């Protein structure tokens, strides 16, 4: 079988995500953007722990599997030591918003000149579907078996909004990969984020809503529909800050 010419060589090998998972789409989008911006040979990925770490097995580039949650700190130093490389921390919601909330927030707060891509699938995927800081109200997970009770767990965190409202970041957006129009839009967000980094103007973050059929115990199509109907109602899609590039 002949390969599509459009597969970026950066990711032209099998990945080990579950069927219906959104990670593969997001990674492909990142790789396409890098290639289109001429940065495929100028990229370093600090990678989170969790399903996001599977990027490491699927991509041939400088990459470091960081300790859980610490990619924001690792990326800070990589970008400051190698300011001419594009640095993208690739993390999940558990890595970036739970165990790594300090590192993620602090990098945004300092306006570090790298890009963070955060895959939000509203649960801890790798460990088998526990509640995360983005689990929806009343969502059932392995550690919220009766549904998430926000009166004791707090409310799901909306990080791009936080970064946009509170910090002087360069770019903050939320996309989704549940259908083709949104995949296209998400790609444009990722591209803008990398362009922001190339301009040197500031921190950029793109959260990507992503289906997790395995842990949501849904068929892939059902999971896509769940994002459209439920996840996006709590996590609105769009751009929250878009600083002028100089």
């Amino acid at each position, binding site marked *: 079988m002949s390969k599509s010419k459009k597969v970026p060589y950066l990711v032209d090998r099998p990945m080990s995500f579950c069927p219906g998972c959104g990670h593969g789409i997001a990674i492909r989008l990142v790789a396409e953007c890098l290639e289109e911006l001429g940065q495929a*040979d*100028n*990229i*370093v990925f*600090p990678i989170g722990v969790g399903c996001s770490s599977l990027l*490491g*097995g699927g991509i*041939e*580039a*400088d*990459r*470091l*599997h*960081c*300790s859980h949650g*610490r990619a*924001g*700190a*690792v*990326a*800070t*130093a*990589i970008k*400051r*030591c*190698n300011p*001419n*490389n*594009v640095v993208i921390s690739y993390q999940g919601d558990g890595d970036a918003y739970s165990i790594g909330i*300090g*590192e993620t927030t*602090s990098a945004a*707060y300092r306006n570090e000149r790298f890009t963070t891509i955060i895959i939000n699938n509203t649960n801890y995927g790798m460990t088998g579907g526990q509640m995360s800081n983005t689990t929806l109200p009343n969502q059932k997970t392995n550690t919220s078996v009766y549904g998430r009770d926000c009166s004791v767990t707090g409310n799901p965190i909306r990080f791009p909004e936080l970064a946009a409202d509170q910090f002087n970041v360069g770019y903050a957006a939320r996309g989704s990969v549940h259908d083709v129009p949104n995949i296209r839009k998400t790609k444009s967000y990722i591209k803008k984020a990398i362009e922001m980094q190339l301009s040197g103007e500031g921190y950029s973050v793109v959260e990507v809503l992503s289906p997790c059929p395995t842990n949501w115990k849904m068929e892939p199509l059902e999971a896509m529909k769940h994002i459209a109907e439920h996840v996006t109602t709590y996590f609105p899609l769009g751009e929250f800050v878009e600083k002028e590039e100089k």
Partner: protein
Amino acid sequence: MADMMKGNVAIAEAAIRAGARLYAGYPITPSTEIMEYMSWRMAEVDGVFVQAESEIAGINMIIGGAACGVRAITASSGPGISLKQEGMTTLSDEELPAVVVNMVRYGNGIGTLYSAQCDYHRETRGGGNGDYRCIVLCPSSVQEATELMVLAFDLAEKYRMVSVFMSEGALGQMMEPCELPEMRELPRYPWGFDGKYTNKKVGIFDRNSRDEAVLLNEKYNAVKENEQRWESIDVEDADYVLVAYGLPGRASIGAAKELRAEGYKVGMIRVITAWPFPEKAFQEVNPNVKGFITIEANATGQLIDDVALTALRTIDKKVQCYCRPHVYGIPSVKAIKQDFIDVVNGNMKEVY
């Protein structure tokens, strides 16, 4: 003539001269002057300084810098180094060189600010998860601290390991005349990230842990064979040998010399590399030695364990091993002499 220089300042400047170009960390007494110094000094040498949001973020920034081939250093003290263990095991796992300074303060938990040696076990065993060791260097003067800082970077680079610079709070705060090392202009390590995936050694995802284990043991055995360092006096005919490191080690040399002058056959081993432990120093000890006595600034005695194990390996007969933990501070020469007298008079029970 050398000028008086504060330990922490000398340590920081020596690191710069040894080639350090990234500092990331979080302030904690009694190590803070190192960070304060680096905050302006790094800029002068086109290095990177980051005031991290936490100890954990600090050590992870060291990982990021080291992965780019930059000579990286962070400094902290007891509780801060506890938080850094995650990063130190990661550095070890990725075989990234870095220097971690622990200006040890006394106590469990958040502890106290007293100068102490209570972190010996953690630093010499590797306090994070997994199977790793760090090279542990223990200075006893400001001058020696600057020399060991250069060595710390050189050994970290040579073996691609973490060098722990384990000193005591008091050494960072005290001043002594000090000749700084020469400024070195070094290129980055040749294998760091360049965005082009030129070097495929860092960030390996497909691992063969069994093969790696063999290589790891070979590396650690080479370090043990080649890098033991110590200072010893009068051990060849000694009835008793004092063993200590750092500032208590320095005071113990004074005590051993005075005891010798008073007619006691006393020797002294000052440990400089706590890991690899200087077993070779013990091979030079009188085979008929009656006892080893460790002088320590902690509560429970820690160095004593390595001394007893090493005595078992190097001396043909069972030798009594005693320990006097002075808890914190620097024991006076007089106090250490009394420790020895207590042993000779049977007033101190052996630990092993």
